[in-house]
């Protein structure tokens, strides 16, 4: 625990020691505003909820999270600091989890800074704040899932651009997997049970319920499993990399 906390602190400090934190937060907040008010027609909906806000999060995270996760390992590999990390008395798992939690906490900060929109709906109307809280929770879980995917991909390459593109593609597949476009494209290959299976693995399927305020344990388990799976893969990838 002590080791994970030490890594966590070092990583968190590095976000704020560089412009990464500020650029990310500003872009995240600006895009959230644009999406919610212009694309989501927040006012025209005339409803005191944040559905217009949350429903764009999968698409925002699709490229913002890979931008955050691409440096996690690719940069360490390129600059050689991975050799320093891995020869300190730390296990690969501790470093992976420490880095992941730090990135996740950082996205939580960015997400928390969207609180003015919550104030706005409370000022304009009388929203179901429980549903909004659930929306935030779901959004955070989804960000965690994308981050775990991105962290894993970042460990596969020294090149941050490749890490970004691969992570964005994988996240896109996770989002779009259950959509009608993909299912139609697959045609007969994905009919009946296969289609159901793909839909059940899709991030959209699990996020849309939560974003409307319905917290189902299955959705939470889905995201937790997604995070665990990719963090384990991340550890395996790093250990295999060393063995190569």
């Amino acid at each position: 625990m002590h080791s994970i906390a030490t890594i966590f602190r070092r990583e968190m400090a590095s976000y704020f020691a560089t412009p990464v934190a500020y650029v990310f937060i500003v872009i995240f907040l600006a895009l959230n505003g644009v999406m919610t008010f212009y694309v989501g027609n927040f006012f025209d909906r005339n409803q005191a909820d944040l559905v217009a806000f949350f429903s764009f999060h999968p698409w925002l995270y699709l490229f913002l999270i890979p931008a955050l996760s691409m440096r996690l390992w690719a940069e360490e590999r390129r600059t050689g600091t991975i050799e320093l990390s891995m020869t300190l008395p730390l296990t690969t798992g501790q470093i992976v989890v420490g880095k992941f939690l730090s990135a996740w906490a950082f996205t939580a900060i960015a997400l928390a800074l969207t609180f003015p929109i919550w104030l706005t709906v409370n000022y304009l109307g009388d929203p179901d704040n429980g549903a909004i809280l659930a929306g935030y929770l779901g959004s955070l879980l989804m960000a965690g899932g994308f981050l775990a995917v991105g962290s894993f991909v970042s460990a596969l390459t020294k090149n941050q651009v490749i890490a970004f593109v691969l992570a964005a593609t994988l996240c896109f597949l996770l989002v779009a997997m259950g959509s009608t476009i993909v299912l139609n494209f697959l045609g007969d290959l994905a009919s009946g049970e296969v289609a159901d299976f793909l839909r059940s693995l899709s991030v959209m399927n699990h996020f849309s319920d939560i974003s409307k305020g319905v917290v189902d344990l299955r959705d939470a388990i889905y995201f937790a499993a997604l995070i665990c799976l990719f963090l384990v893969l991340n550890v395996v990838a790093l250990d295999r990399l060393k063995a190569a």
Partner: protein
Amino acid sequence: MIEIDHLSKTFGPITAVDDISFNVAKGEVLGFLGPNGAGKSTTMKMITGFLPPTSGTARVAGYDVRRNPIAVKRRVGYLPEGAPMWPDMTPAAFLAFIARVRNLSGSDAEARIATAIRRTQLSDVLQQPIDTLSKGFKRRLGLAQALLHDPEVLILDEPTDGLDPNQKHEVRELIRSMAGTKAIVISTHILEEVEAVCSRAIIIANGRIVADETPADLAARSWRHNGVSLRTRTPDRVKAAVSSLPDVGKVVAEGGDRIFVGARNGASIITQVSAALREADAEVEQITVEQGRLDEVFREITNPQQAHA
């Protein structure tokens, strides 16, 4: 302290380290020499647990690196090649991080950080981001990181690379001051460094150990060992006087008024030579006995064809 037992490492078709074995005891400073790509860094990476060996074992203080990596890493201070560090951190934050990772806290951590800073003379740059530091400061910060927890084993990959002559001297003094209480392995290209700080030298070429002895013994392999170098205004008379002596081998003119008198099979020839010179009434301004040159031996051992050409 360090036991390397038939260690090998292959990367696909390339054999980087080929069945090497050696031990390093407490109090020894082992110089690891070899041309670029000989396998020095790969060996160090295996001892420190960054790369798993393809076969063989590396043990530190009795712990197998593969079975007990954390126990080994606790006991080792390692300066990786190129001294990689997170560029956005300051040296102060970096050393505080290393102290926490090493489970040091409170006044103990502060005292050790202060000691490491003093020994590596980093106090002027503590608050400057690492990527703005000069190569010399970075290398010294890497050293400070490696010795922070006062480890039993120090593994330093090119510790003086990029340092100016004064800094090199300081780092060598630092290594020498720690020599008695630790097992130290340093890799280097600089042969004078081996003579200056190492109690033992291993030369590695193409992944194999080709020499393992003290720097003095290594130098004694040189054809110049025990030869006599002299400066004279009457080179012809000198040559005539010494070339017929029984233990004298090659006699070469080395530019200007210098002559080198080689010893056959490393025999001690100085008394014979000086007697012969006195007899011949040669005018000699300077005369010294050579110990041999490490760089020649190094070339001879690692690249026999080219050394003769």
